[in-house]
């Protein structure tokens, strides 16, 4: 249905669009276009870029490995406390990332709940690249759980039932029927998760710190560069915007059906 919007809705809607668009316009307008290539080629930037790619991809992989089984359990097994587990799985979306970072320190830090165990195993997470991966996974995993569970719920259960009547064991049903049919939902969830992990700032800086080459990912680099070399910050920001736009374009059919 197409209709002419009343003025009382059209005006705030237009203001809303401007509010969202202006910062991007500012970014594009202030960008030192001639020097963008040079800025992005600098050692610090390339280091941050490489680290961001490595940590965000690792975080996405970890989120898929943990999040898909969790989504399966939430969608297919009814147990006491399921609502609580689902709330827990989605909590990082609404939790301030800095709080997430503090909580991670209290769980996996040197004096944290598992700190002693981890130390005994020779694993150190805070202020390491692995810690940056953990922080990004914590914040971004809900997107995998959310998309996968929704996909599982909309999957016709008869495919899995048919597989079982043909003699397939539950793990084989999952691997050969559920997972392939789930691929589009899982792909969308993983892409959103990756985009979120790539932009992670608060939990990472709190839990993993801001060590160039080890934990200083792109968003952290942008923040630091804003003080000393604003042109570099803008160039990095443009890169992150471009990545976000690409993810949105790739997922537009899944996120906004019809």
């Amino acid at each position, binding site marked *: 249905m197409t209709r002419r919007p009343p003025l009382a809705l059209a005006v705030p809607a237009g203001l809303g669009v401007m509010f969202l668009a202006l910062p991007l316009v500012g970014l594009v307008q202030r960008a030192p276009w001639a020097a963008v290539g040079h800025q992005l080629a600098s050692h610090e930037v390339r280091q941050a870029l490489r680290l961001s790619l490595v940590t965000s991809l690792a975080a996405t992989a970890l989120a898929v490995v943990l999040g898909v089984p969790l989504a399966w359990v939430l969608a297919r097994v009814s147990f006491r406390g399921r609502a609580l587990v689902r709330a827990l799985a989605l909590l990082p979306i609404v939790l301030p990332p800095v709080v997430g970072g503090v909580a991670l320190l209290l769980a996996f830090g040197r004096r944290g709940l598992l700190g002693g165990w981890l130390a005994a195993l020779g694993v150190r997470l805070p202020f390491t690249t692995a810690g940056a991966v953990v922080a990004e996974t914590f914040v971004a995993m809900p997107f995998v759980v959310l998309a996968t569970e929704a996909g599982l719920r909309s999957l*016709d259960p*008869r*495919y899995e*039932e*048919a*597989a*079982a*009547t*043909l*003699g*397939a*064991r*539950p793990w*084989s049903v999952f691997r*050969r*029927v559920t997972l*392939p*049919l789930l691929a589009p939902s899982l792909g969308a969830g993983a892409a959103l998760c990756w985009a979120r992990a790539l932009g992670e700032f608060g939990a990472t800086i709190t839990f993993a710190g801001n060590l160039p080459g080890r934990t200083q990912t792109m968003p952290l680099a942008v923040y630091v560069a804003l003080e000393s070399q604003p042109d570099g910050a803008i160039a990095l920001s443009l890169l992150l915007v471009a990545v976000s736009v690409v993810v949105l374009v790739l997922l537009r059919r899944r996120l906004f059906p019809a």
Partner: protein
Amino acid sequence: MTLVADVQTGAGGFSVDAAFAVGAGETVALVGPNGAGKTTLLRAVAGLSTLDDGRVVVGGRVVEDRRAGIRVPVEDRAIGFVFQDHALFPHLSLLDNVAFGLRARGVGRAEAAARARLRLDRVGLADRASDRPARLSGGEAQRVAVARAVAVEPTLLLLDEPFASLDVRARAEARHHLRDELAVFGGTAVVVTHDPVEAMTLASRLLVLEEGRVVQDGTPAAISERPRSAYVAELVGVNLFRGRAHGDHVILLSGAHLVIADAGHGDVLAVAHPRAVALHRHPPEGTPRNVWAGVADRVEHLGERVRVRVGGAVPLVAEVTAASARELRLADGGEVWASLKATEVTVFPV
């Protein structure tokens, strides 16, 4: 007995409480009105839902017994299941669909593919082996679904309304194919349907389910002899004639001739509703070309209508108004002539 089932299961206000058995090699049609619990019963036997009470024995093996605490999971029951809308795996080729069960049971890739190809060949779809299910017509999908289910040679095959998603044209052909498939399969099968023609062309025995209970169990002839409910009477009360079509007429098994409007050839099942049969006390004149002499031997009142069985060379059931039954003094029995217009006969190839 290949299947002995005593199933009590329910959800909400609806419950199924049914006991029945199916002999080796037998094909039974599970019939009943919509909402009678046919699918629920079938799913419970397959293990796709749990029983509240009762037991299921397949090929002599107890696969579920609530009181003994036995529940064999679906994948270990050796029960094939053909779903109403076929449920072919959309991400796999036809060949991989049919080979799926063999692969799941540990058959090697090459051998599973070879055996699946034979199955596809038998249903005439070998040249489509690499197609995805989305490209199939309803009838083709149904053939693949049956081929997939029988590929693992189950002890028992369950089919849930196999023709429900097909249009009328495709049904006759699909029925024909399924009859052949079941004959080749040679195993025990239960077919859910609510179409009497399907039930009688596919099965040698009917199991009538109403409101979750088995109300009748027997051969179509035995059930139509004494229908125990209005639904059963309607279901089996139609006049069914088996015979061989020769153009404009069918030679019935008894040798009698039945004139039909549709040209046809080969083995057929001819169906005429009792309302289409007219009764006379004297040989009728005029258009009807199917006229048989007989004896009115049972008269049943169904409200304003009266159902009359006519014994003779061509046994028939006729339904006439109460007024005409009085006029013809049918309650007295005696000799009558039954007539049936050729245009009132529907012919199904079998």
